[in-house]
């Protein structure tokens, strides 16, 4: 007799129907992938049981790629083709990167983002990152035995628009459906907050391999609200290694080093730093390619003194975030430590002294971000029933604005504004008969445009000639839930319009992303086609399910005629899904989207009315 199957209480009776969603911590030094399994967030290990994937990619002359430990093993022999800490180059130009001279790569100063010349050709940091993401995606697919429906990828909270866009592009090239870019300290706060049922104001101090973030959050009854965030996207554990490396070079009186010796000593410097977490002194020995032997010893005291300025440098953003939040240190209930670099005792000490309390270290600082990302991915995938999920309110880290006369910045959306955010401002012409206007979008806090990051330039043309100051040009900024900006401009008397998704000047153009997508499939047309078809089918299926659920819940909001036209659009799409023409499916998806536009808006209005009605009844 067949046994009856009984599901665990609160679990879906058909667990295979839950959507497979993953959280990825794409770190400077190490990357991880996690998922929620039977309600518990877990990090997914590789075939050898290792959770961390070193964020190292090696390109070989035949075009093949090694990622993680195999690449790490070769980094000193083949430094030029073995890319470490690629996250530091995401969305960055050559002039933005510190210590470029001690990085053993062949940089190509491309417009916008720098590139790297390797044995397998010139690579963008986006492509390098996508290799890391691909390995994690494959690991997850193997472990979860299925297609991944969506991924949350974490980014430093202090990442600007160009760095965020680059990360999202890397996810796409790796074949991931990026559900959301999530700020690393926020991910950590989710994991910490839920694990410890924390309520109140918390600070998350996140010192990773290459970036530093500080976020202040209010945690209350299922709401995670970021009040302020600050940081330094060019400060992390790598800089501590660099200090040790320079100390070694000076102590051992070394002549300028060859690339492989440089990498060898950087590895030794990192090992010494890690050793000093639990020991008082680290011996550093290395044999250089010249045969010269390096043999020095670094004690804790020296290590603290050569890195003291770095530790102090993290406290500036901490003060700023507190000021922006309007809080004093006494109002912060706890400080959650995140990132491998917070293991250093001098960092723990400095943070403890600043906040006048012991930092919270009860979660693994390497894993907490990936676990939080997995939990958020699970919510975004719709696997949590309403009531058991939570609301996340995050902010943009840097002000967004445009250039006005005299090279000055006019802020349109200030830093620490809750996202999604939108704001419009009117500008006018400077000269009589002016018919064009150049709009320069910038990000940063400084008054001079030259001190801010240039995000994009575009032109609004065809303004009818008018007297200076008569035209009304409305520039609208929209920041989405990923923290990504789009800008549109419109002249209101004539209706001339121009809009862009901000990416060109420091990101990749759409054409570049397309090319990389093609490259990643070895130019195989069938693969591209199969992939487009698979994506369209998933999209279509998802839309059909969502529409049916919406109809079941809120049919009353539609007239019979309206309902019939939606049902017809659903049927039209459903008929095409088994077919092999992805363009036809795409068209039907678009048609269904159009057909549900008004319905979606009405459902949203009804949701708000219900929310307010519920509150009024509740407060009686």
């Amino acid at each position: 007799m067949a046994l009856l199957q009984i599901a665990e209480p609160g679990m879906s009776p058909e667990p295979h129907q839950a959507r497979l969603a993953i959280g990825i911590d794409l770190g400077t030094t190490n990357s991880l992938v996690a998922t929620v399994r039977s309600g518990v967030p877990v990090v997914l290990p590789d075939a050898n049981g290792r959770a961390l994937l070193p964020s190292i990619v090696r390109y070989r002359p035949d075009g093949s790629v090694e990622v993680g430990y195999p690449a790490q093993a070769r980094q000193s022999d083949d430094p030029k083709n073995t890319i470490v800490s690629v996250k530091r180059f995401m969305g960055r130009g050559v002039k933005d990167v510190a210590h470029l001279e001690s990085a053993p790569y062949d940089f190509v100063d491309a417009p916008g983002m720098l590139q790297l010349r390797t044995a397998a050709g010139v690579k963008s940091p986006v492509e390098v990152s996508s290799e890391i993401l691909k390995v994690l995606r494959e690991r997850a697919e193997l472990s979860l035995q299925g297609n991944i429906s969506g991924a949350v990828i974490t980014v430093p909270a202090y990442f600007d628009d160009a760095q965020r866009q680059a990360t999202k592009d890397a996810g796409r090239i790796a074949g991931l459906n990026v559900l959301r870019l999530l700020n690393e300290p926020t991910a950590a706060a989710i994991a910490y907050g839920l694990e410890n049922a924390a309520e109140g104001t918390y600070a998350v101090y996140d010192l990773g391999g290459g970036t530093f973030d500080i976020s202040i959050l209010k945690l209350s009854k299922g709401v995670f609200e970021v009040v302020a965030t600050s940081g330094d996207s060019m400060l992390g554990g790598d800089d501590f290694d660099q200090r040790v490396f320079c100390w070694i070079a000076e102590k051992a009186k070394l002549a300028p080093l060859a690339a492989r010796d440089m990498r060898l000593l950087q590895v030794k410097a990192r090992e010494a730093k890690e050793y000093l977490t639990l020991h008082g002194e680290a011996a550093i020995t290395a044999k250089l390619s010249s045969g010269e032997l390096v043999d020095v010893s670094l004690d804790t005291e020296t290590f603290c003194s050569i890195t003291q300025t770095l530790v102090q440098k993290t406290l500036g953003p901490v003060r700023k975030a507190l000021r922006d939040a309007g809080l004093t240190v006494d109002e912060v209930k706890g400080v959650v430590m995140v990132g491998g670099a917070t293991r250093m005792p001098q960092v723990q000490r400095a943070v403890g002294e600043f906040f006048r309390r012991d930092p919270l270290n009860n979660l693994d600082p390497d894993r907490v971000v990936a676990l939080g990302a997995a939990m958020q991915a699970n919510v975004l995938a719709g696997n949590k029933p309403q009531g058991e999920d939570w609301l996340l309110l995050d902010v943009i880290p840097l002000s967004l604005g445009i250039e006005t006369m005299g090279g000055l910045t006019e802020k349109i959306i200030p830093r620490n504004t809750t996202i999604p955010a939108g704001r419009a401002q009117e500008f006018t012409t400077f000269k009589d008969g002016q018919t064009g206007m150049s709009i320069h979008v910038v990000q940063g806090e400084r008054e001079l445009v030259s001190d801010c990051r240039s995000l994009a330039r575009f032109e609004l043309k065809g303004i009818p000639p008018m007297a200076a100051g008569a035209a009304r040009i409305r520039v609208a900024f929209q920041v989405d839930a990923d923290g990504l900006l789009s800008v549109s401009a419109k002249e209101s008397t004539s209706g001339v319009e121009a809009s862009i998704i901000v990416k060109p000047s420091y990101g990749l153009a759409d054409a570049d992303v397309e090319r990389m997508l093609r490259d990643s499939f070895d130019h195989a047309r069938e693969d591209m086609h199969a992939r487009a078809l698979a994506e369209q089918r998933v999209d279509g299926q998802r839309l059909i399910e969502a529409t049916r659920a919406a109809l079941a819940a809120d049919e009353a909001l539609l007239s019979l005629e309206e309902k019939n036209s939606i049902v017809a659009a659903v049927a039209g799409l459903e008929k095409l899904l088994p077919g092999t023409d992805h363009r036809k499916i795409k068209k039907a998806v678009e048609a269904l989207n159009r057909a549900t536009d008004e319905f979606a808006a009405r459902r949203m209005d009804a949701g708000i009315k219900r929310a307010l009605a519920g509150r009024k009844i509740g407060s009686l």
Partner: protein
Amino acid sequence: MQNHFDLFGLPPSFSIDGETLERSYRDIQSKVHPDRFAHAGDAERRASLQWTTRVNEAYRTLKDPVQRARHLLELHGVDVAFETNTAMPPEFLVQQMELRETLEDAKDAAALDALRSNLRKQKRQLVESIAEAIDGKKDYSGAAGLVRKLQFLDRLDEEIDAAYEAIE
């Protein structure tokens, strides 16, 4: 023009119940936030983005006294005219110049702390006067002058932030 008070089910007054505002904000966000629609179709995602953006902007406006007063006065047809009307009573300007001189002379955190607490006190008094003018006397054009003063003090507050950064 959109009425932000209506959105949160609040009466249109300058004095507001912060807790009710926060609760309605969160209730609405939990219904419209993009995280609720990550797997939905384009139409719903677009509607969600638009709504969340509007709700965030409305919340930000109502939380800040200057923006809240400005919005309320606009609902009553009075333009606060921050950009065009910079005329201030002479005694207010003298007081402001003194505060600014104190700011320039402040060389350490203690001096800035003292200045800030003095400024915050003045701001609190102004907020009370604005509440009295709008909610009590319904003197909207009188209130507009007070709101301009408050914005002046807000700017000084920002400059104090910059001064803290400069000494750190």
